């Protein structure tokens, strides 16, 4: 065995900062001035933010009308599945005391509908919805194929349970004349949904493209007859369908139904006055003790009229600020105590 020659320095470790653990580093010292000033500024920032959020949330207007009970007879009718072909409409008048300015959005809101169940969420076929292969139903169990083994389009539990009430908002210009508030059924979805995620097989003849498939069991019409008025709003590109398809995270959720077309009377939004919702009641909710409402709302930069974020900011800001005062008090008290101790 060869001996290491004396003073052989080849084994000397490198004198690099990394290897000697002497890398320059930030060391977080919690000095009084730093911590207290950070707390003060953070507190003020959060308070301001909270106030701004609350103010802007309060500036939005929202009307929510629950029509489960109002349309109790319809609800009863829908509890029996065999009555699916019997039409049931229901009108809900309401008074808008203040006009709603700007863009008004109409939502339907479901209470207690679990769109977030694991099996429910999994039961869809993105390949089918892309329009590449309408017969791709492999992930859609148990709504893959009908009893006669024809693939269902659109397949899956989500599609099958699509919300299918029609809601028409009418404005009573005067006691006798009622006009329909023009609602746009476009721009309800993300661009990517409309142009990438959901695609019809082709634009020519939808009925042909979907030949050899069948409609979901709960649907009255096949996918290509969802919107009889606007042929382009059919197939997988139907806006209501696209809005329904992403699963909501919580059992109570609202989904966009339409937005106000700002024309004629409604250029500035919805004027105050008497309105009514004319609802074709199709979607059964009482079976699962659910409820449904229709919501009219305006939006601001930070969303709807939910005060939660604003309040959370305010509370955080207030607590931070108070904490900074308390910490300052404790710190100065102890400091003077220590000083007197040292001076003795």
């Amino acid at each position, binding site marked *: *065995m060869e*001996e290491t020659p*004396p*003073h052989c*320095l080849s*084994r*000397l*470790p490198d*004198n690099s900062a990394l*290897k*000697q*653990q002497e*890398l*320059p*580093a*930030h*060391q*977080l*010292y*919690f000095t*009084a001035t730093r*911590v207290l000033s950070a*707390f003060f500024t*953070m507190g003020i920032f*959060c308070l301001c*933010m909270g106030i701004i*959020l609350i103010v802007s949330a309060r500036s939005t207007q929202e009307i929510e009308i629950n029509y489960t009970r109002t349309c109790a007879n319809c609800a009863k009718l829908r509890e029996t599945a065999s009555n699916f072909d019997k039409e049931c409409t229901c009108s809900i008048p309401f008074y808008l005391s203040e006009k709603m300015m700007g863009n008004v959005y109409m939502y339907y809101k479901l209470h207690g509908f*679990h769109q*977030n*169940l*694991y*099996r429910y969420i999994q*039961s869809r076929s*993105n*390949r089918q*919805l*892309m329009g*590449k292969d309408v017969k791709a139903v492999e992930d859609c169990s*148990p709504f893959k194929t009908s*009893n006669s083994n024809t693939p269902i389009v659109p397949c899956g*539990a989500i599609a099958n*349970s699509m919300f299918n009430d029609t809601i028409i908002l009418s404005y009573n210009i005067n006691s006798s004349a009622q006009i329909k508030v023009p609602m746009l059924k476009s721009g309800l979805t*993300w*661009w*990517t949904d409309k142009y*990438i*995620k959901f695609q019809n097989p082709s634009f020519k003849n939808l009925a042909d493209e979907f030949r050899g498939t069948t409609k979901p*069991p709960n649907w009255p019409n096949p996918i290509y007859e969802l919107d009889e008025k606007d042929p382009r709003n059919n197939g997988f590109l139907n806006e209501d369908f696209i809005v329904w398809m992403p699963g909501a995270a919580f*059992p109570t959720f609202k989904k966009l139904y339409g937005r106000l077309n700002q024309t004629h009377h409604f250029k500035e939004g919805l004027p105050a006055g008497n309105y009514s919702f004319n609802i074709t009641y199709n979607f059964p909710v009482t079976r*699962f*003790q659910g409820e449904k409402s229709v919501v009219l709302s305006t939006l601001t930069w*930070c*969303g709807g009229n939910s005060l939660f974020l604003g309040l959370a*900011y305010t509370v*955080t800001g207030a607590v*931070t600020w108070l*904490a900074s005062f308390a*910490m300052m008090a404790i710190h100065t008290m*102890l400091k003077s105590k220590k000083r007197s101790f*040292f001076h003795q």
Partner: protein
Amino acid sequence: MAPPAMGQSFMSANVKKPLFHKRSNQQEVIGGEIGVGEELSYLLLVNFSPIHRAKCRIINEATRGYLLRSGERSGVTMFCSEKKSLEVERIVKANDHEYNEKFQYADNRIHTSKYSILTFLPINLFEQFQRVANAYFLCLLILQLIPEISSLTWFTTIVPLVLVITMTAVKDATDDFFRHKSDNQVNNRQSEVLIDSKLQNEKWMNVKVGDIIKLENNQFVAADLLLLSSSEPHGLCYVETAELDGETNLKVRQALSVTSELGADISRLARFDGIVVCEAPNNKLDKFMGLLSWKDSKHSLNNEKIILRGCILRNTSWCFGMVIFAGPDTKLMQNSGKTKFKRTSIDRLMNTLVLWIFGFLICLGIILAIGNSIWESQIGDQFRTFLFWNEGEKSSVFSGFLTFWSYIIILNTVVPISLYVSMEVIRLGHSYFINWDRKMYYSQKAIPAEARTTTLNEELGQIEYIFSDKTGTLTQNIMTFKRCSINGRIYGEVHDALGQKTEVTQEKKPVDFSVKSQVGREFQFFDHSLMESIELGDPKVHEFLRLLTLCHTVMSEENSAGELIYQVQSPDEGALVTAARNFGFIFKSRTPDTITIEELGTPVTYQLLAILDFNNTRKRMSVIVQNPEGQIKLYSKGADTILFEKLHPSNEDLLSLTSDHLSEFAGEGLRTLAIAYRDLDDKYFKEWHKMLEDANAATEERDERIAGLYEEIERDLMLLGATAVEDKLQEGVIETVTSLSLANIKIWVLTGDKQETAINIGYACNMLTDDMNDIFVIAGNTAVEVREELRKAKENLFGQNSNFSNGHVVGEKKQQLELDSVVEETVTGDYALIINGHSLAHALESDVKNDLLELACMCKTVVCCRVTPLQKAQVVELVKKYRNAVTLAIGDGANDVSMIKSAHIGVGISGQEGLQAVLASDYSFAQFRYLQRLLLVHGRWSYFRMCKFLCYFFYKNFAFTLVHFWFGFFCGFSAQTVYDQWFITLFNIVYTSLPVLAMGIFDQIALDTSYWTFINHVFIWGSIAIYFSILFAMHSNGIFGIFPNQFPFVGNARHSLTQKCIWLVILLTTVASVMPVVAFRFLKVDLYPTLSDQIRQRQKAQKKARPLSSRRPRTRRSSSRRSGYAFAHQEGYGELITSGKNMRAKNPPPTSGLEKTHYNSTSWIENLCKKTTDTVSSISQDKTVKL
């Protein structure tokens, strides 16, 4: 050589047909970890203690480093043990392949690699899935494949699992590749084999049992050989066994005289057809039994005739040997064995933690399952049509059952697989920091610190007990002749500069580096009076020095420059012989029968009649010499206690005087030897010598008879005096000991040395001080005595506390209770316990064990002296077991191996006596003082880092996973995840792994503040960047177009992140999570400041740090008379010298002349290094002492 009885019995046992089972020719040596290296890097660990008998291993120091031991995946198995039962004995016939093939002996090919290309995948996977974590994740994967309960898609588990398994597999594969490479390298080494009466070059792997091979100087030995002949006279050859047992001195092997006659005669060698019958392959390196039958006569074979694989031939130009054991059967390979893996307490903590978390997970699962059952029966019922259409109904209980499993799958991320990987990575990083630390680099020997085990770093920060060896660890194992007492007079008390002058005038020869290197350079014994006495011709002084020059086993040789070099066997002897040399009594040379010395310029040759060798029971050695006048004298040196009993009664006065001197020396921590002589009558000696020869030839009770004869002649000695040799402390030992005890680490010294020497080293190291309230010395020879002494000590310790002297019965009951939990009582004052090996043996018996432990743990310092390696290990085990404390053992020699292995952490001092300690250790460095940095910096940091890392890791995973628990209440307990599957998959391995790792590796606890290096920044911001880039990539149109079902998130990111309130929520969350922590830490500094806070404040206030007060060693304790005898010497050298076997050949063969000098001089080169470095250190040390 007459065939001894052993051989005959062997043959008679041979009548039975040996049992052989069919064995594959290619034995796989699993477990030997052999890597690439220039040299054959099988280093073998000799195990000394019986408890470790079976645990040997081979380690390659050159390449494999610490990575080698870093995982359990090596899955080392012992193969040799099962084989032993197969082969009862071995019969080998030289030059006869056909004959030997009958037995199907293994050939010389070795396989240390574990896998081949075909077997790699199955074996490696099998090994990996034996790890609990991997198996657990495999189970999860299987669960996920069941569609009924699969709540996460399979890739969430398989991606991390495959990643982890691949990483490990790649590492294993690389390791194995290197093993293959080294196997190939070794197997393809060339050696000259006698085939068809010709010497032919053959690869090692083709060497067969029974082959005769030729070895040349400096070649590695290919297999275990029976030495047949060599170039040296008497069939001698020299081998270096450093790779086998770490000893660097050369060993001598001698061929049978019948075979050594064969010489290099190829034709005769080719005709050699001896049959060797010997033991079956085994792992005993120092034993061999066999019988050679050749030409109708039988010759017994022992270890002296065998050259083992792994040795290097030295100083011998050629030799021939017959292969007895090949390949896996060689002793070297037989010693490969299992490595015991040590786990840290964090590991154990984490295991329990993980178990608790599993329990917690199951609880959550049960809660959610119950929730699911209730929900299903209450609400879910009504959703049946949405979910199941025309599928069969499910009962809510069954649904709950399935949900349980689904949630187990979802919630498994609390203990992700990446935890284990991250921990390994962090530890590896910490190990590298240790290797890279320049502050632990010993520049004088070019030895960096080495973390040989990567898995134990954080344990270093929790050490409570350090068990330290003394020699070579605390002390330098460098002896300096300091004082002597001749004929009742002390010399060497004056240490003045004048002494230097004396030496210069006195030394006739030019200052000889090589000579000095043997002694330790600072020869400062220059007491005028001794010189004067020599000049005056005081016969006693001359006799004293003559004795030092004659009575030893030192070998001398002249190097190329004509300087005299002493090759010493023990440093004590070196010190003595060199001291004598400096006083004009120069040991010049020796032959087996003579010793030539120069007495004050006159060369005198003494006839060496006998060497009565040293051994540990005799504690003395003697030589019998005849001077040119024909006078026969016995010169003896040894332990005072022993030698004083052998003195002639007329020595009484001198004895008491010398004994006073001896205890004075001992009090100064010097190692003493008593020196005596006896004039022998010619006739008496001849008679005795004849008896000795008879005894030597005896077959029965040979050793006893010889010992008796030695006793017989070593009596009526005339006392000459005593020598005192200083055992120098290592550099920085005092400071290290002080700071470690400031850190509340208890240091126990476990040494094989004598009690007094150990005590004095204790004083020197500041472990024992005169401030101590009491020092208990337990030195009883019987169990009762020891028990009583312990009891007394305890009573003393607890003072008035009468509980402990309540009589025997109560005491025993109490012990029983205490064994379960030893309660540390608060004892005021410093105490020390000194216990010797005999007492320790009794104290370690079960009923006194606890008393000992309790007492020892109360004491600030514990010194165990004269302990055997096994006892060292027992003491460590005792503390480990009953104290539940983390222990560290540090040592440098083979006797520390067992202790190093049993402690939680074993530290080896490298660059010392051989490699055994280092090989067994988990960490190694060159100096004891580095322990301070290892423990107080690396250990502390590692521990903090690991703790912080674990907290951080569990925090992030709990925060990440528990969301699913709460979401369960909203989603009808249906095991729907909140995050998408890819986020779950990548969260632990990509998004959050690096910041935690960076913190775990780079954080420093400099005054309890977090330590953010640029790497932390890079990792944190990098991880965020990676998160967003992956997010956008996964949410992109392109990937959706390709995999619509796997990546259905198209557009989510870009639409959500443009929402202002998302950012507001992120900001608020950050503020709300950080603020409380900051406030808490701020207030904690104010209200409950930690030590470091206080220090920082004081630093701020005073702008200067208080220097650490280091205590100087106190004045020596002058106590009752005690012996300072100590002698580092081994048995067996006397015999070697008298046999002449180790004498250099007078006419070295021309081929090897140069090499010989070269290789002989390796040791002096080594010593030269030592010398130069030590000069530097000693000078600095002397300075400090003087100042």
